[in-house]
């Protein structure tokens, strides 16, 4: 095995023997950003682009999150919802007795498959692409939580929304697992017809808190 390593590295060194530029000569990678308007415009663009993926976008003030979450779950008729440990408890305080709130105490994939929805926070939102990035911190939970249940309600604060992709990349910590989500799961594999919902959540509700 180590023989393979040495041999491959040796071949690659021989193959690049003609290269005269030193390592790292290009300098810092350029940051090519999209022209940004005001914060307000960025937020508008974010909402527009998220909705363009056929996700639902709802805006509310901090006091309205619980209501918005409850509405989103009711729209799909969710009867059970898993919440990550670090989630702001007030966000799911508006749920009546008919929705079972389940804590993530080591649920198996099969357990998760039996739950209807998940509610999480987010790490960053990207306006030009309508993307939400999760870094799976305590208020978002481990990756399986936002994958197996069929509905994901994601609460994004307005101040978490950046204009474009490079701005998001600089905010992210690569030592964390990262999931970039742009609309619900989708495929275009059958005659290029877009179909929402193959394996990930088929419903994505984004609550933007302004």
């Amino acid at each position: 095995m180590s023989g393979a390593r040495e041999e491959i590295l040796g071949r690659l060194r021989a193959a690049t023997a003609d290269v005269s530029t030193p390592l790292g000569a290009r300098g810092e990678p350029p940051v090519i950003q999209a022209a940004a308007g005001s914060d307000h415009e960025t937020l508008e663009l974010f909402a527009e682009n998220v909705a363009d993926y056929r996700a639902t976008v709802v805006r509310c003030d901090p006091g309205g999150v619980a209501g918005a979450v409850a509405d989103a779950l009711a729209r799909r008729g969710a009867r059970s919802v898993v919440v990550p440990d670090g989630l702001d408890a007030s966000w799911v305080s508006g749920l009546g007795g008919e929705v079972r709130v389940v804590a993530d105490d080591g649920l198996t994939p099969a357990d998760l498959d039996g739950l209807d929805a998940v509610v999480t926070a987010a790490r960053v939102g990207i306006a030009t692409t309508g993307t939400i990035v999760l870094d799976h911190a305590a208020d978002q939970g481990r990756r399986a939580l936002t994958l197996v249940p069929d509905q994901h309600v994601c609460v994004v604060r307005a101040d978490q929304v950046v204009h474009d992709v490079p701005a998001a990349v600089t905010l992210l910590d690569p030592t964390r697992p990262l999931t970039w989500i742009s609309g619900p799961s989708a495929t275009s594999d059958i005659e290029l017809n877009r179909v929402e919902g193959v394996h990930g959540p088929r419903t994505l509700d984004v609550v933007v808190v302004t």
Partner: protein
Amino acid sequence: MTGPQPAPGRPGAPPTGDVGGGPTAYPDGARRADGLGEPAAGGGPDSSGPLQRTSETFLGMPSFQTAARAALANTQQRRNLAHATATIRAKRAAVVAEVDAWEELRVAGAEAKDEALHHLPDYLEQLEDNLTARGATVHWARDAEEANAIVVGLVRDRDAEEVVKVKSMATQEIELNEALEAAGIHAWETDLAELIVQLGHDRPSHILVPAIHRNRAEIREIFLREMGDVGRPAPADLSDEPARLAEAARLHLREKFMRARVAVSGANFAIAETGTLVVVESEGNGRMCLTLPETLISVVGVEKVLPTFADLGTMLQLLPRSSTGERMNPYTSMWTGVHDGDGPQDVHVVLVDNGRSHVLSDPVGRDALRCIRCSACLNVCPVYERAGGHAYGSVYPGPIGAVLNPQLRGTASDVDKSLPYASSLCGACFEACPVRIDIPSLLVHLRTQVVDEASGRSPEALGMKAAAWTFGDHRRLEAAQRAATLGGRLLGDRTVRNVPGLGAWAQARDVPTPPRETFRQWWRRTHRDEDREDT
């Protein structure tokens, strides 16, 4: 075989290594049994690494032109392909137009890949160090056989009888599924298109939408016929509505995701600076594979390395817009070794050479290794649109396949020799390529090599063979004319240097920009004194 072994004797289930049964069944007369196609074994101690062995699947493939002739006769495939490529082209154009700095991004993308490729050993060592520090185990594989042996060994050590797989060009290239099946391990493809291809005992025809050659009625039929043999059957009342078909796939695969202990993936990018691997996808099957199993094995070509995490700021703008024509693909997953309490705790990365060091040793040809497999070049290629993916005799079809395959595998075989001629050099691929691979120039470079290597065959002979193909049928001539017209539109006043199938021979003569005159008019005017068989 891709996928589970079919019941013996089932109609439509081709024997191992056969490309028949699919829409591009080659006429028997086009087959070769003489073993040509086996490139000379290994490189010497010189600067170029050994070539990739052509897998049995593609061994003895007819030349591109011969295979394309069979494909041209397949109306269904051509109709599907024309629809698909036109749709994706339009989507791509719309989202690329949204980005003011698109050209700057392309330059930055090319520079990021060049930095990595020009110093590949250094960046690979850095990648390995960071992966190891974050709890992953790194393996190195000189060729397909070694890579397959590593993966099979890892799966066996974990007593697993099956693996779930994310669509990956690298594992298709090394034919990992076949190796796993041979070891008694089921490999389940989980990408919808790959599932269609696998259940249909078929081969992918497009990088991005591998089942592009199948329509909904065919997919329904495949699901109804095959799903029950390998897991949860399709519902008996399945219609050919895309939503119903996707639902059937969701149910069929969910039971596999829930129980799988080992997953195999590729990676779109591997970040040297941090040890982060990136998988870009749409359906969520990637997330399932990367998250739920205990063990994750990622097979990564050495050229997938990017120097820094910040380079993703460029690449994640370029790739989705070029590829699916979306602002962003639905899901992108990034993981850096093992994450405590989240996802697989047993993480392996297999770094694969398999001919890449050979490609890297050519200072011109190495640009092809920048490729991020977006498939934009396929979708703009008039030759691909008509010939289809199978004619390229490799898992890498289209313009990029035409430059990559002969470099990875050498030009000893009929198909690899002919691939540099599978282009009109119209330039559309270069303009579409997000990392600025000048595919037409690379093709010319390769044609020179093919000609140099062809003992007793002059460039004229090669050119005439291709010309005979072009003129053998009025539809191909028509295709050539339309391709030339398209080239003229894209290139404005610049000279079109070639037309499909004419190869090095026409290469030496400049073709005036169409459509000032039709192809036939031009031909009569410029080749009055040549031997020809078109009239």
